[in-house]
């Protein structure tokens, strides 16, 4: 500096709008201009001759003092920016605010340098303006990127992550510091799609269509994302910002759909099999229905045919017609006729056309009574276990038929266990919901299980068909299960059979629970008698053969018989004649026996009436009317008449 007045230099220094401190070689203050006094609050007098560390004991001054030393010793100039040295010196602006300053250190004079100069520039205004601009920009940026639901990463041109938004940290599980400076390839199992996309983005700069990436989270799991990336520039510097849309949910849904598609065939197969099963069941039940109809019809006709045969033979036997040899033939014929009658009975049972005396039945009592009986029948090799639940409600059933059914099942079980085993009879109460082949409601489940040979599927499928038997010729009728099937169906229940070859068979009878209380079955064992009768009997039957043979029986008993071939004819006799007793067929052309009985009762309420029927239809045949099943022998007819009195 050239100057004419030495004092001028001092004035100039004090007039500067820059802080100036000159240090001597020992680091002590040699010049301290007015600006410094104003900014630091330390007067020149107080500062001169002292090192900076004494003036500002709390400041971190090592870098500054080192820079001053370098300036003096080796002529180096140094820059200390506010960026890396915020609050280097405790300076304030004239408004009292904290001053943001850049500091420059230079050697003074010619070498060797005796002094070092420190200049301090107040950049508060510029820094503040930059700060405001930056904050405004950051606020806008944060509003978009910071709150975005998708991970957003910004990469520099080398692919190093330079920023990661909160979503990225959340989704991938890494803190920002664990992502910054790293490459996304480090978190990808397959980096090829990203590398390809990166190449295109760098080359074209255009936004890239999504590539799907699987990002390995910090916890090791995979996060699937659709990545789009675009290039942007800051001055000449290139950056790439990638948005990584979370597609985990979409992928999961797609996976489900794929699985659904893959299993479609199997589901179709299952449904088809179900349908076929239902069809087979339907076919089976239709077959059983048809067989039942046919059997019922045949049985009915047979009954009608048997009635005069049995009746006629009975009379012949009773009268002792013919010689001894003739009588033997009559006996034989009668025995065969009896067996035919039993067979027809069973056929009727299967066809659900037997007359059932359904009432509330205490199943437990029947089971206990019957199993006592089994003991002798089944032999010592078969152990009988009875398992009856307590407090069972009564079942709606015909006690006699139920006993027959139980006996039948027990015999079947015994035959299935030639080497012995266990027969279990269990009774439970069960509720049936809607959607089953049974009507919803409560049922008594009576199960008879054996540990015998069991049945294969083919045998099981035919088990209830009439005349199907696995027993040898002459050992069984093949009607046992058929009868039980008919019985349970007629009662509103069902029959279920489960069997495993080699393990045994369980037959379950499902009987509806009766609403009333169980009736103590007073044994109404009719005492067959050769009862002698007297009086006028009106006999009504449209079948001449049956009527004739029955009339013969009645006159043998001592009755006077008036025959009528129709209900109409019978009614005229009721009006004109003295009649003590009416015996009528049920199924007749025109008016039925039951209807006739009602009319007779209407005229003559005290008239005893017996209905004979071979074709029992429970709903048609009024239960309050006494009846007799065809065919019958004289003794049975006598008993039926005796019942009326």
């Amino acid at each position, binding site marked *: 500096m050239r100057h004419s007045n030495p004092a001028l230099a001092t004035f100039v220094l004090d007039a500067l709008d820059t802080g100036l401190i000159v240090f001597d070689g020992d680091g002590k203050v040699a010049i301290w201009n007015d600006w410094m006094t104003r900014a630091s609050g330390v007067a020149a007098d107080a500062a001169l001759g002292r090192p900076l560390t004494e003036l500002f004991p709390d400041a971190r001054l090592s870098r500054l003092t080192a820079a001053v030393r370098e300036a003096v010793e*080796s002529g180096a100039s140094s820059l200390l*920016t506010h*960026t890396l040295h915020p609050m280097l010196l405790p300076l304030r602006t004239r408004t009292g605010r904290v001053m943001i300053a850049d500091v420059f250190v230079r050697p003074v004079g010619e*070498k060797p340098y005796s002094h070092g100069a420190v200049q301090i520039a107040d950049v508060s205004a510029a820094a503040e303006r930059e700060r405001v601009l930056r904050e405004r920009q950051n606020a806008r940026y944060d509003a978009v990127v910071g709150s975005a639901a998708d991970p957003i990463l910004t990469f520099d041109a080398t692919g190093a992550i330079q920023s990661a938004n909160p979503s990225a940290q959340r989704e991938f599980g890494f803190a920002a510091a664990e992502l910054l400076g790293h490459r996304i390839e480090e978190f990808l199992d397959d980096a090829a799609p990203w590398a390809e996309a990166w190449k295109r983005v760098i080359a074209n700069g255009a936004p890239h269509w999504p590539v799907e990436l699987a990002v390995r989270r910090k916890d090791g799991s995979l996060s699937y994302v659709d990545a789009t990336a675009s290039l942007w520039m800051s001055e000449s510097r290139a950056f790439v910002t990638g948005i990584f849309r979370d597609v985990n949910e979409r992928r999961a849904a797609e996976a489900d759909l794929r699985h659904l598609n893959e299993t479609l065939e199997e589901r179709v197969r299952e449904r088809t099999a179900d349908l076929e099963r239902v069809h087979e069941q339907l076919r089976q039940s239709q077959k059983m229905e048809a067989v039942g109809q046919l059997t019922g019809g045949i049985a009915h006709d047979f009954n009608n045919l048997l009635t005069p045969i049995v009746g006629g033979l009975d009379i012949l036997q009773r009268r002792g017609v013919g010689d001894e040899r003739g009588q033997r033939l009559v006996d034989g014929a009668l025995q065969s006729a009896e067996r035919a009658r039993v067979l027809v009975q069973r056929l009727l049972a299967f066809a659900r056309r037997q007359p059932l005396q359904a009432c509330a039945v205490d199943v437990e009592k029947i089971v206990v009574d019957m199993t006592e009986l089994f003991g002798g029948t089944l032999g010592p090799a078969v152990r009988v276990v009875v398992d009856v639940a307590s407090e069972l409600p009564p079942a709606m059933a015909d006690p006699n038929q139920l006993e027959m059914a139980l006996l039948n099942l027990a015999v079947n079980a015994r035959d299935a266990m030639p080497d012995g085993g266990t027969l279990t009879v269990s009774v439970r109460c069960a509720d049936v919901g809607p959607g089953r082949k049974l009507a919803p409601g409560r049922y008594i489940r009576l199960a008879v299980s054996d540990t015998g040979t069991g049945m294969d599927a083919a045998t099981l499928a035919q088990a209830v068909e009439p005349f199907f038997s696995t027993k040898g010729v002459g050992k069984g009728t093949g009607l046992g299960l058929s009868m039980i099937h008919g019985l349970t169906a007629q009662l509103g229940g069902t029959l279920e059979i489960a069997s495993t070859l080699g393990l045994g068979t369980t037959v379950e009878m499902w009987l509806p629970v009766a609403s009333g209380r169980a009736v103590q079955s007073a044994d109404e064992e009719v005492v067959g008698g050769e009862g002698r009768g007297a009086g006028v009997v009106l006999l009504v039957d449209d079948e001449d053969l049956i009527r004739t043979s029955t009339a013969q029986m009645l006159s043998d008993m001592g009755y006077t018989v008036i025959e009528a071939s129709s209900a109409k004819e019978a009614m005229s006799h009721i009006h004109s004649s003295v009649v003590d007793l009416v015996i009528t067929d049920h199924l007749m052309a025109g008016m039925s026996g039951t209807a006739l009985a009602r009319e007779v009762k209407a005229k003559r309420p005290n008239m005893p009436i017996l209905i004979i029927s071979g074709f029992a239809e429970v709903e048609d045949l009024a239960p309050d009317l006494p009846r007799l099943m065809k065919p019958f022998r004289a003794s049975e007819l006598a008993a039926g008449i005796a019942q009326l009195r």
Partner: protein
Amino acid sequence: MISLPATVLDELELDALTELVNIGVSRAAASLREMVGRQVLLSVPTVKLVSRSQAVELLGQSETNRLVAVHQVFEGDITGRAMLIFPEVNSLELVRAVTGGELPLEDIIELEQEALAETGNIILNGCLATIANMLKRSLKISLPEILRGEGPEFFELAPPPEAGDVVLFLYINFSVSERDIRGYIAMLMDMPSLEALKVLLREFIERTTGHSTTATDAPL
């Protein structure tokens, strides 16, 4: 006629220079460590003396991207330019390293210029001041300035040197906060300065070893 640069300084003198520069960057590392509060490692593995065109070639071979440089002028017995050069793509990493890594990207971009200037200033001062001190000479070193561009531009700054110049090419490894940043220090000098440097180095070697040596009878 200019002598081939490689022959101006012999092997021993180059070794001595490498040693001096290493001491210098170690001091710079200490300054940076104090400033950023974490470990900073700086090392200069090799020094090469090359012509300007060779320097451009060297830089062009290893760096294809744009470069950034911190530039300072030194004047005194030896005169020239010193530059700390590294790839521009690394500069943000460097800034993040020295600012502590907590700043958002946008702030780092804003602060890059200042932070680079100051960091380069510390490293270059460390080298130059150490060389000057060890050689017992004073240099006057300017304040730092940032340059950006391709390599060749850095070696053709105005005003051009009066005499033919050479480049002392130093590789520098920079490691901070688990980040490794490679770079170069280039010192451009004219021939008179290089001759002066050679004299100073020889004096330094004599002082250090206590006797006169030549390249041919260097102690093993």
